[in-house]
């Protein structure tokens, strides 16, 4: 018979107020197999852990049970302590008498009885626990970063600087993302491109970074440390290996295509680079807009290209890469103006979104930084900014706060005032939210010194009347309706996940939240990881965030990857499914229920096996297995049966 020690934690008053911990310890002493039991005020403190270690030795314990908080918090703490005292870590179990008992009950007598039952249940489990060894898994020390915005660039640079190889995949032909579109950044007003382009260049030149722009993820399989990724490199119809980026082809191309980068405020040819500082600075031909692809005539770019880099015969290429960790940093999109019916449904030319206004303010934008409205190029004298356009509107649009709009709208109004001194900006807002270093000061200054009129209320309707864009709103502070015949209206449209995020998340088998943003493993304590091992997330793909936060999260995700790569091999939790090969009938129901693709069919033996590297120990296949061939280590059928009996008060 095993000698089991039970250690009951008071957790200050968190447990002790509702549960009579001394009684739990006394009752535990009487349980079969329990050789020692003791309570203590903070079991996770150093003296608490010392108590556990000392008693393991003194009492010659074979296993310990810590009756305390949830195993997600301190299981690893106590398993490490047990190991120090010479126990196998899987001989240490947690009985959760806090989250599952003291916190959710008020009746002391009943809660104490329940705590005793919980301990008795875990005693039954512990009696039959085997000693296990972690499963070693090798690691491919090369990372994949998906998305070449500031998040992806920062993560790739941090990993590459620590000496590991990185593949940086970007859907567009250049890295840079939304940050490359911005004019100046709040609250310091430094030029966005000036601080971004050095990082773009560094990523482009880094010996450890392989840039794959104009590329998309096709498929992925494998597991943490050993992923195989299929990447589609889209046909650029330009041989980038010889193109020197001279730009002659772009000058000569007769096609006119609205620039996505310039938010359709400018046009470029069918062969183009999105912006002059592009990395790599190589053009692509947009097949749908190219006159030759549409009509079979033209090929002007080919004629002017002296080095013969144009290649109309190019096809998409597929490359397979092996990586050990994946960071998803696919960024954000904004709610299309066309979706906002009450704000003109995209039909009013002088209603634009914040990103379009960034292009108007940008020195490299279509107006070279002069604020000119799209309809007729006039410099707007009255300009209305509408915040929360689609955000904080659970009935019609998005329920969440898009977080960056209060700050960038203030910045917009301020930059507009700096360029058009006699202009009048108005800002409609619900609340001004300025959580961030230097943000409130930035807003205070703009409101008090810059002559921006803040109107607290929502805008009901925007329409065109002659050459004016009329805004109807309410000022809820004065209770009056407001009508402004503006020259230009800028909507702070809701930040939404990119269209492609859902599809990508499905390919990667990582989770998204209710609004389509990537889900983190824990909202507070694991913010840069996906729940699936080996997947990390960074930037606005996880939720609306500004540049400093994005960069911090990207470095955090990079650090997690570096930490993963710093090990010789990975250790997989051995408390996973295993198969009794004599019992398995090869029905394969386990394969259909496994959410991790960890069950595979062995044709030769006619049985279903467990891929130990992929198995997360969720137990789905164990429950589904009709003949009991699949069992979970340390949660066998006989363990569960005796645990159920004990939890119901039986012997």
């Amino acid at each position, binding site marked *: 018979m095993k000698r089991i020690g039970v250690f009951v934690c008071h957790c200050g008053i968190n447990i002790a107020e509702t549960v009579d911990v001394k009684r739990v310890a006394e009752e535990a002493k009487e349980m079969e197999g329990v050789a020692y039991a003791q309570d203590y005020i903070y079991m996770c403190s150093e003296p608490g852990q010392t108590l556990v270690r000392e008693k393991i030795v003194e009492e010659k314990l074979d296993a310990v049970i810590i009756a305390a908080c949830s195993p997600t918090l301190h299981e690893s703490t106590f398993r490490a302590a047990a190991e120090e005292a010479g126990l196998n870590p899987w001989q240490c179990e947690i009985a959760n008498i806090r989250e599952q008992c003291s916190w959710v009950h008020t009746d002391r007598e009943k809660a104490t009885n329940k705590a005793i039952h919980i301990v008795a249940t875990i005693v039954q489990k512990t009696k039959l626990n085997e000693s296990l060894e972690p499963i070693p898994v090798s690691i491919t020390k090369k990372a994949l970063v998906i998305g070449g915005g500031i998040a992806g660039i920062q993560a790739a640079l941090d990993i590459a600087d620590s000496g590991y190889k990185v593949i940086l995949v970007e859907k567009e032909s250049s890295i840079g993302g939304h940050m490359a579109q911005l004019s100046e950044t709040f609250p310091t007003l430094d030029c966005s491109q000036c601080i971004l382009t050095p990082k773009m260049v560094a990523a482009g030149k880094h010996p450890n970074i392989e840039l794959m722009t104009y590329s998309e993820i096709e498929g992925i399989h494998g597991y943490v440390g050993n992923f195989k990724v299929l990447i589609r490199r889209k046909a650029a119809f330009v041989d980038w290996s010889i193109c020197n980026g001279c730009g002659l082809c772009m000058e000569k191309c007769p096609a006119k295509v609205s620039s996505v980068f310039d938010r359709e405020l400018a046009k470029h040819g069918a062969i183009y680079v999105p912006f002059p500082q592009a990395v790599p600075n190589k053009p692509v031909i947009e097949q749908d807009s190219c006159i030759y692809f549409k009509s079979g005539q033209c090929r002007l770019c080919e004629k002017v290209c002296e080095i013969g880099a144009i290649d109309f015969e190019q096809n998409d290429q597929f490359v397979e890469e092996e990586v050990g960790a994946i960071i998803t940093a696919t960024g954000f999109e904004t709610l299309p103006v066309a979706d906002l*019916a*009450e704000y003109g*449904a995209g039909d009013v030319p002088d209603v634009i979104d914040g990103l379009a206004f960034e292009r108007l303010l940008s020195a490299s934008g279509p107006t070279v930084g002069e604020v000119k409205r799209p309809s007729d190029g006039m410099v707007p004298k009255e300009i209305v900014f509408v915040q929360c356009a689609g955000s904080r509107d659970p009935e019609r649009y998005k329920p969440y706060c898009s977080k960056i709009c209060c700050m960038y709208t203030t910045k917009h109004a301020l930059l507009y005032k700096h360029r058009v001194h006699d202009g009048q900006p108005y800002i409609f807002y619900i609340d001004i939210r300025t959580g961030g270093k230097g943000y409130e000061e930035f807003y205070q200054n703009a409101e008090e010194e810059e002559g921006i009129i803040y109107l607290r209320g929502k805008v009901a*309707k925007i*329409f*065109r*009347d*002659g050459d004016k864009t*009329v805004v109807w709103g309410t000022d809820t502070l004065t209770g009056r309706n407001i009508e402004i015949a503006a020259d230009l209206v800028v909507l702070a449209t809701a930040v939404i996940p990119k269209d492609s995020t859902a599809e990508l998340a499905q390919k990667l088998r990582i989770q998204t939240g209710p609004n389509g943003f990537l889900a983190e493993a824990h909202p507070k304590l694991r913010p840069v990881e996906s729940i699936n091992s080996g997947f990390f997330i960074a930037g606005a793909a996880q939720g609306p965030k500004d540049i400093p936060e994005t960069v911090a999260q990207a470095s955090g995700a990079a650090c997690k990857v570096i930490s993963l790569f710093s090990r010789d091999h990975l250790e997989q939790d051995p408390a996973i499914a295993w198969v009794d090969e004599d019992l398995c009938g090869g029905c394969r129901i386990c394969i259909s229920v496994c959410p991790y693709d960890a069950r595979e069919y062995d044709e030769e033996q006619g049985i279903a096996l467990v891929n130990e590297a992929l198995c997360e120990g969720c137990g789905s296949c164990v429950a589904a297995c009709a003949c009991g061939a699949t069992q979970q280590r340390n949660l066998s059928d006989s363990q569960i049966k005796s645990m159920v009996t004990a939890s119901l008060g039986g012997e």
Partner: protein
Amino acid sequence: MAKIAYYPGCALNERSSHLDRSARDATVKLGFELDELDTWTCCGAVPPVSEERVMNLVAPSRILKDVRDSGRDILITICDFCYNTLKRTNFSIKSDEIIRKRVNAFLADDTPERDYLEKDDSPWEDYAGEVKVIHLMEYLRDELGYDKITESLKRSLKGLKIAPYYGCVMLRPQNEIQLDDPENPAIIEDFITALDAQPVKYPYRTECCGSYLSVSSPDASTRLCYRILTSARNNGADAIVVSCPLCFYNLDSRQKAISEAYPDFTPLPIFYFTQLLSVALGVEFGRQGFEKHYVDVTPVLDKIASSTGKGDSE
């Protein structure tokens, strides 16, 4: 000829009889007949502004139940208020079990139950919202198809610029009415296009005409209608088209008061959609009841006549 159950409502029986007649004429040309219910009562008209939860639903429920009992499942209305009232009543009966029971308690033939407040477990669930309430324009769009109208045109409305006016209750509340997007609707624009005329874009098409304020604060309605009419006119409209009798009254008759209050105002003809439809399908001008209009519609009729060479002499 297919007959479809039709509820005219009070306005179409009297003041807006030209809306009723033009609708009947036009639908016959399109191959179906509006079959007026044998007996019908007031729809209730004002449930949208009523605090009462049950009593105001009894009259419209009785109408709907009668349609169901006569073996039909579609009821066409034209007046926007009747449409709103009947459709929302049906929605409440379908989606709210307590309302369904209470209303049915009143409709029961055998023992009408009056003290409904204590009777949430009332056994009467006879009428459960089986009838589909359809606006005539909705029927034309979804059941008949606007294409069918275009194919049947006898007079050309080409070159005529018509401003759609939606008013309030035709589209709202969206989750109950579900006719079109109340912020950016298209059903009347598409109707105008089907008639080969040109819809005019202007911002006031969904703004309020004053509705019942016409009775209590006529000046407010005058101001609102002035803005609607002027905006339509400034955007090039030859006329405005409506389907609601109250919108028609405010936009048409009120132009007298508007002309007095605003010296710069130029009158603008108002049509019911059924009048334009009926005219386009070849029905004589003389059957349209234009004599009931305050604003002279002749300039518009002249345009139609000259572009087709088909005036009322046909």
